[in-house]
């Protein structure tokens, strides 16, 4: 009886994905304990974040893909309206305008857009009969550009990059012409100087420091240098849990959030890194499987985009912490401390699960 009830409750949970998520989250809690200076209340707080995120993931998993398809457009429009409101009445903190105060809660509309964007584009392309035309991609690009411009204006380079990525993956998976891609790449190269001039000073500085962190070892380069020292000194097997000197002696900045990977890497070494990369690979692999087995255009585009966006998260974070990508302020999914990104990630996994578990048997 109880097992039947449980079966019913977890009917739409993908157990493979769930196990992978669980292990990764456990690793994250252990690393967080070390990174926070053995602060248990930090770990509890993250536990609550995870619990809330799991609740929302369960909810998302129980919404059928066709229902998701129906709310794609309204959610996208809501996101855009909220982003405009942020630009008009947003709450400013740390020099950025990202938050919207609604009564007692503060929401970050750019996070909504991270889910609404791929949903909207997947919805748009699923409605086109036959092979999408060039005009469809132009409309898709426009749907993508408006919210991204609003997010960039906040400014939030990390999130806008991820939203662009999530939208771009839809366009690519929907069959964006290779020639067009190539042309886009050339155009991008040509437009780089223009883009450069549009960046904020601190963003430019971050890119400059990326190329040569020693330029400003005590200022902006300090993050990268200390993170690289942490990773490098971890060696093959790491210094052991709670024994990372860079971490425990406060040399590593932002070590519970964006730079938590350096903590993990220092204490668990190269072996630990490979293990973590393995866990992430399993999650991504599962995403690919779900996408390739999905039964509607909407579902497969959305699943593909979610999976690739997750990958982008991981790659950009690890790349920036290990000094091969600019510091753009992207957390390491499932590991970094913080509720907002945890919820966004888990909801997107809920959607993946929904796509996987709402399949009907199709005769071939």
């Amino acid at each position, binding site marked *: 009886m109880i097992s039947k009830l449980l079966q019913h409750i977890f009917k739409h949970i993908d157990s493979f994905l769930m196990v992978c998520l669980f292990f990764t989250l456990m690793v994250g809690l252990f690393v967080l304990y070390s990174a926070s200076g053995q602060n248990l209340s930090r770990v509890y707080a993250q536990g609550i974040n995870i619990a809330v995120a799991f609740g929302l993931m369960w909810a998302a998993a129980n919404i059928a893909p066709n229902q998701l398809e129906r709310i794609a457009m309204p959610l996208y429009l809501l996101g855009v309206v909220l982003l405009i409101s942020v630009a008009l009445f947003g709450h400013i903190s740390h020099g950025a305008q990202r938050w919207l105060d609604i009564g007692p809660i503060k929401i970050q509309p750019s996070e909504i857009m991270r889910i609404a964007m791929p949903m909207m584009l997947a919805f748009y392309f699923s409605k086109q009969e036959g092979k999408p035309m060039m005009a469809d991609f132009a409309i898709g690009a426009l749907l993508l550009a408006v919210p991204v411009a609003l997010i960039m204006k906040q400014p939030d380079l990390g999130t806008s990059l991820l939203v662009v990525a999530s939208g771009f993956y839809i366009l690519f*998976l929907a069959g964006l012409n290779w020639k067009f891609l190539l042309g886009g790449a050339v155009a991008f190269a040509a437009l780089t100087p223009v883009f450069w001039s549009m960046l904020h000073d601190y963003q430019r500085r971050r890119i400059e420091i990326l190329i040569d962190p020693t330029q400003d070892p005590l200022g902006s380069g300090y993050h990268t240098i200390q993170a690289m020292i942490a*990773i*490098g*000194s971890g060696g093959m097997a790491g210094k052991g849990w709670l024994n990372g000197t860079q971490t425990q002696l406060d040399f590593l900045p932002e070590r519970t959030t964006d730079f938590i990977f350096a903590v993990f890497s220092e204490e668990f070494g190269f072996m630990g890194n490979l293990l973590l990369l393995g866990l992430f690979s399993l999650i991504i692999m599962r995403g690919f499987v779900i*996408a390739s087995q999905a039964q509607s255009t909407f579902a497969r585009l959305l699943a*593909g985009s979610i999976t690739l966006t997750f990958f982008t998260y991981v*790659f950009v974070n690890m790349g920036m912490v290990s000094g091969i990508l600019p510091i753009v302020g992207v957390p390491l999914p499932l590991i970094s401390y913080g509720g907002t990104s945890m919820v966004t990630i888990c909801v997107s996994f809920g959607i993946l699960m929904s796509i996987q578990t709402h399949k009907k048997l199709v005769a071939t």
Partner: protein
Amino acid sequence: MRAELKNFQHEQYYFRLRLGFTALVVLVLFGTLAFRFSYLQIKQFNHYQTLAEKNRISLVPIVPNRGLILDRNGVILAHNFFVYTLEITPSKIKDIEATIAEVSKLVEVSSLDRKRFNKLREESRNFESVPIRTHLNEVEAASFAVNHYRFPGVEIKSRLYRHYPLGKLGAHIVGYIGRINDKDLLSLEQDGVLSNYKGSDHVGKSGVEQFYESQLHGTTGFQQVETDADGRAVRVLTSNAPVPGDNLILSVDSKLQEIAETAFGERRGALVAINPKTGEVLSYVSQPTFDPNLFVDGIDVDNWKLLNESLDKPLINRPIRGVYPPGSTFKPFVAMAGLESDKRIPPFAIQDAGYFSLPNSTHRYRDWKPGGHGLVDMQRAITISCDTFFYGLALELGIDRLTGFVRHFGFGDKTGIDIQGENGGLLPTPDWKMRRFKQPWYQGETVIVGIGQGYTLTTPMQLAYATATLANDGVAMRPHLVTHIQKAITNESQAIPLIAQDRIPLKPENIAIVKQGMLDVTLPGGTAASVGANAGYSIAAKTGTAQVIGIKQNAKYNADTIDERHRDHALFIAYAPAEDPTIALAVIVENGGHGGSAAGPIARKVMDYYLLGKLPTPDAKTEDKKAAVKPADGTGVSITTSQPAPEEELHD
């Protein structure tokens, strides 16, 4: 339906193709990450491990306790104690003036403190902390500590401070330490001991503090400390204890020193007393003196001006830096030169008419006593300080033979005392004059060297050393202030070896003549009869007067009519007990007038205490002044050469 299905399959195929491509990209990019990790963690592991260790571990020097300086009876002349200081690290603060203004609301900061702070700031490096206030009391330290969080870059430190409990007394012996400046850094680097001064702020700047710096400083210890990103020490990894500096035990007796310094009163001058048998310096006076404590935390501008610009020049270490013409105190050594060259051997005597003339010249070198002394032999010439006798002797010896001989007594050369910066004085020779003035030597210049005038210059140290050598029958013991160096931990002390620097082969009968002449100086009829009166022991002495300004051939020296600073210097050398001397000394009272009356009583007080333990009577000073009404002592001098007599060379 079929077409639809086919369309679906076609679409799915395309989708999977594209998805496969992205999977490949994912693989390549994850591969890139793995490659990056292997580069950082395996290939560059050693490099980053070193950097991490450097981050984490810092070496903190532990400054050793500086050795103590004690007098011969164990009285402390220099020691250390802990004081709270409030220090500012300029590099950590944006607006220093505003910070000081805020701090001064909690802890009083005087304008003197500010001046000193500004001076120290110029001298020190930007990342070093500089004291804004020293000697905080408990209440001040506590009230700042409570508000410490408001002042990043301002700290309370507990520093070991050098203190000289006797203050001015013996300041020129002990010297002082001061903050290490660029010049000190350079010399420490040249000596190869710079690493031992990591963490040290101070170095000996003068006196034995400077001369025995390497013994006093000790060996700096080190702690390997694990530090966090803010530089706070988390825990000590290894510790290497410092070795405290050695203690110095001086030959000086602080009580005797006090008596000697007090005896000078307000007068300027110097005194050096030596035990002739050992070379131990018993007393070493340079008047006026200064308080060495002023220099320890860096002297403030006002006090510095006061000391440095004073006409009395209290910072000059007169016994070794002050050069004076020896005047008649030179005569016993000229006499020794004569006797050893078989000149003026008794019963030789001259008939003194009150002047001496060179052959074929009408110029008269006058004796201090108009009309002369009558029949004078060598012994009496010393006793009554007969100028005429020594004019002739000097001329007969010749300048080379004369200076060549007295050089053995230490004139014209450093004595080797253990204080830096000794001046070697000057024994003039024709060669020297040619080099110095490009002029030939005149016979007349030889004549006046015979009475310690002309170019001849000596330091009080040299005079005392020469007197001690004479008293010790020609055996010249190296003079020294430090007798023992004591290990701070074991208290094991090592004696400084006694070194005979020269053994002058003097005939005993010649020594006897000179010594008898000097003994008679303090007996009735001698030039310092009052000094020897009622002594209770025998004193051999010689008075002297050194001219400060030249007197024209026919002018008469009148102390009352010339400026105080142009009056003659009074000199006095002596040893006692004459038959078996244990103390030999030289006294100079600048612009004091006559040696017997101005300098002699000071010497007497020192000898009285040293030999008999007798304290000076409080009214002794006024008696001295009465006694100064010209008795038959003193040695007036006239100089006829075109060169004016060299003035005192107290310029540093």
